[in-house]
């Protein structure tokens, strides 16, 4: 590193360390991290100050009139993860970034002020390098604070609670990435206007506008996907043909989405990186169709299934008289979904079951047809649910047998229901329109859901913004 670059880096660091907002945020972060060292969140109790006092979760929750959920120990890791996500990705990713933008927006205006500019720009350093050093100063600002927060929490939880999620560490680069976008824009406005206030306000407006564009685009994509599936299912399109103006709006939304930096994708990138680092266990895999089950409901075990059992490919149960789940598979050529549904409906009529709930749910690349009913089994009655869904040329059915008495809203019931979202299939994208982007985003594949494209196009925007700021700065006469 040349002496000039060393000086620019040191200058950036001094500027950050001397910043009052930086110091204030650093103190705030220490207060956020400290509890992870002082309070141990064990699976069954909270331990304060290394054993000085202990509280079981039931009594803690009772203070707030909240009943302890059944099998609470199963939620221990989830609770810590959610707390980390809330503090870092959500609070830090929004309020923290807004603070950081406000605290660093004056870096450039102060550099180009009369008197200051003469001294600094007369040095044998290019204006572009000086501008970039201010950019780096901003990144250091956020990187140091985020690193202290994330690493501090990680070490605190590891030492005190015995909990470790290395994937959580991805929050550091992702937060810096998100801030890097805003800071580049702030720098451009600061160079153009030479005003900190203008830089702050415009950047925050840009942040909000950007969020609206990408959320709007995701909603549009979801709606178009829903319409496509609706038409594929032979259902008529509702409403009038959209006007040319509306079409124009959709095109504009597309253009803006592809052009603007994708700040909202940061959460998906973070989640994806976290998942990539987390231990990836597959509970079940069908080699023929590539269907995989990532996680079984707690307490379930799988029963052996052979070729002779086809179309059954997997059986899971929690023992008698608990719930059971059966997975079946046919080639789509051999059996169509509508035929399978007709067959089931007529079987139910034959069995004398009149009360059948018909529903739909999103699994893999489309909507599953759902039938739900209650049937007698010996002296007791059981709740049955069958879903038919397609995936990569196959028809699958997922058949539930639930013990009667599980009420709607019961945590166990929800877990059993949501278990099916742990299914994935090679080469198949989760097309749930409500979470289309999150479900479809991958490190490859279709451009609009490709995370590399998201990062690449965003970095291109950042580079162009910085280049524009550098060009403007090079044309200023001081």
């Amino acid at each position, binding site marked *: 590193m*040349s*002496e*000039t670059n*060393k*000086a*620019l880096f*040191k*200058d950036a660091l*001094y*500027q950050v360390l*001397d*910043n009052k907002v930086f110091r204030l945020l650093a103190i705030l972060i220490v207060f956020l991290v400290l509890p992870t060292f002082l309070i141990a969140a064990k699976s069954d109790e909270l331990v304060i100050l290394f054993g000085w006092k202990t509280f079981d979760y039931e009594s803690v929750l009772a203070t707030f009139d909240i009943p302890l959920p059944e099998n609470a120990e199963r939620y221990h890791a989830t609770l810590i993860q959610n707390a980390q996500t809330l503090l870092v990705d959500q609070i830090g990713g929004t309020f923290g970034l807004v603070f950081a933008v406000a605290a660093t927006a004056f870096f450039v205006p102060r550099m180009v*002020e*009369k*008197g*200051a*500019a*003469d*001294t*600094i*720009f*007369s*040095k*044998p*350093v*290019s204006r572009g390098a000086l501008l970039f050093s201010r950019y780096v100063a901003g990144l250091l600002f956020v990187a140091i604070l985020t690193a202290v927060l994330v690493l501090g929490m990680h070490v605190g939880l590891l030492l005190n609670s015995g909990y470790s999620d290395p994937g959580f560490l991805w929050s550091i680069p992702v937060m810096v990435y998100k801030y890097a976008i805003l800071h580049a824009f702030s720098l451009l406005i600061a160079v153009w206007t030479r005003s900190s206030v203008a830089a702050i306000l415009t950047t925050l407006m840009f942040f909000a506008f950007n969020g609206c564009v990408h959320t709007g685009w995701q909603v549009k994509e979801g709606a178009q996907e829903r319409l496509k599936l609706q038409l594929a299912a032979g259902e008529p399109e509702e409403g009038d043909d959209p006007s040319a103006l509306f079409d124009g709006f959709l095109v504009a939304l597309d253009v803006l989405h592809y052009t603007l930096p994708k700040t909202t994708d940061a959460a998906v990138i973070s989640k994806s990186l976290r998942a990539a680092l987390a231990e990836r266990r597959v509970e079940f895999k069908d080699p023929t169709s590539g269907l995989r089950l990532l996680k079984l409901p707690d307490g379930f075990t799988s029963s052996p299934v052979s070729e002779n059992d086809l179309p059954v490919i997997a059986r899971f149960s929690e023992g008698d008289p608990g719930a059971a789940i059966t997975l079946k598979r046919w080639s789509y050529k051999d059996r169509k979904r509508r035929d399978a549904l007709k067959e089931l409906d007529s079987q139910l009529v034959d069995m004398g079951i009149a009360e059948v709930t018909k529903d739909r749910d999103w699994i893999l690349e489309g909507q599953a047809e759902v039938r739900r009913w209650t049937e007698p089994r010996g002296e007791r009655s059981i709740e049955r649910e069958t879903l038919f869904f397609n995936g990569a040329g196959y028809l699958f059915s997922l058949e539930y047998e639930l013990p009667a008495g599980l009420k709607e809203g019961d945590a166990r019931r929800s877990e059993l229901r949501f278990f099916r979202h742990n299914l994935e299939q090679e080469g198949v994208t989760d097309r749930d329109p409500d979470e289309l982007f999150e479900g479809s985003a991958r490190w490859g594949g279709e451009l609009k859901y490709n995370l590399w494209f998201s990062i690449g196009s965003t970095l291109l925007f950042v580079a162009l913004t910085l280049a524009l700021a550098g060009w403007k700065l090079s*044309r200023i*006469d*001081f």
Partner: protein
Amino acid sequence: MSTSEASIRIEGLSNTYSRRLFKKGFKALDGVSLEVGRGSVFGLLGPNGAGKTTLIKILLGLVRGFEGKAFLFDDPAGSVASRRRVGYLPEAHRLPTYLTGRQVMELFGQMCGRDVTFLRSRIPSMLEKVGMSKDADRKMREYSKGMMQRIGLAQAMIHEPELIFLDEPTDGVDPIGRAAIREVVADLKSRGTTIFINSHLLMEVELMCDRVVIMDHGRILRQGTIDELTPRTGVAEFTIPLPNTDLERVLAGVGRDFTRTERGFDLSLNDEELDQCIDRLRAAGISIRGIQARRLNLEQAFIGLVKKEGWK
């Protein structure tokens, strides 16, 4: 002056500010040409708006889009190579408030390509020179204007530049500080450093500079040595033993009024009259201790010149 002997070489330099679609703009420089020799102390004078600061800023690359040619040590003015050999103390400068005086010197020295070892060995003596050793580790925001000026001067010299631009170097500095700055300038000159001073304090310029340029309305009105720019007034200052009551009689024949002074008398005369005056004084037995031709000081010369040009 050959090009290699010149620290600064400017040919037909012109610059117009804010030339936009419907704006004519303001011509800050209008065909300025000058050369500054190596190792000299060069003064730039002119009223407000004369184009002095613009000229310096063009040489340092702070103002671009000029016409004409400008070189520092044969490198194009404003280039990184030329700026590496230059130190600059701007007028009303503002140094980064988040740094201490010592950090300013170290960082700015490093930006000019000097390594930390060299700088750390040099900084204490530089601080001593500008009288800031005691306060070097305080943040810039705690400094008074005079202290800022001293650190500003030190940062301009820290990397041992061959040419230093000082824009109003004594601005806000007390008399002791001004004397120290003059000493620093003298020291730099003795080491062969070229110094380019822009100042409103003409007495300072007169005391420090070898050559001076007077500018107004973006043009050079006159340039030369201090002697060349401060013409004789035609008044001779005579020093004679006092009291002397016979002067009226002795000088009556010279034909011009004289004024008594503390040391003798002043008399307006030409060279021929001077000879006659000396002869008469000697003939009257009056001892002549000294005769000095009175000159305009720089301020008088400057005001006279600018007013004259302004009325044209």
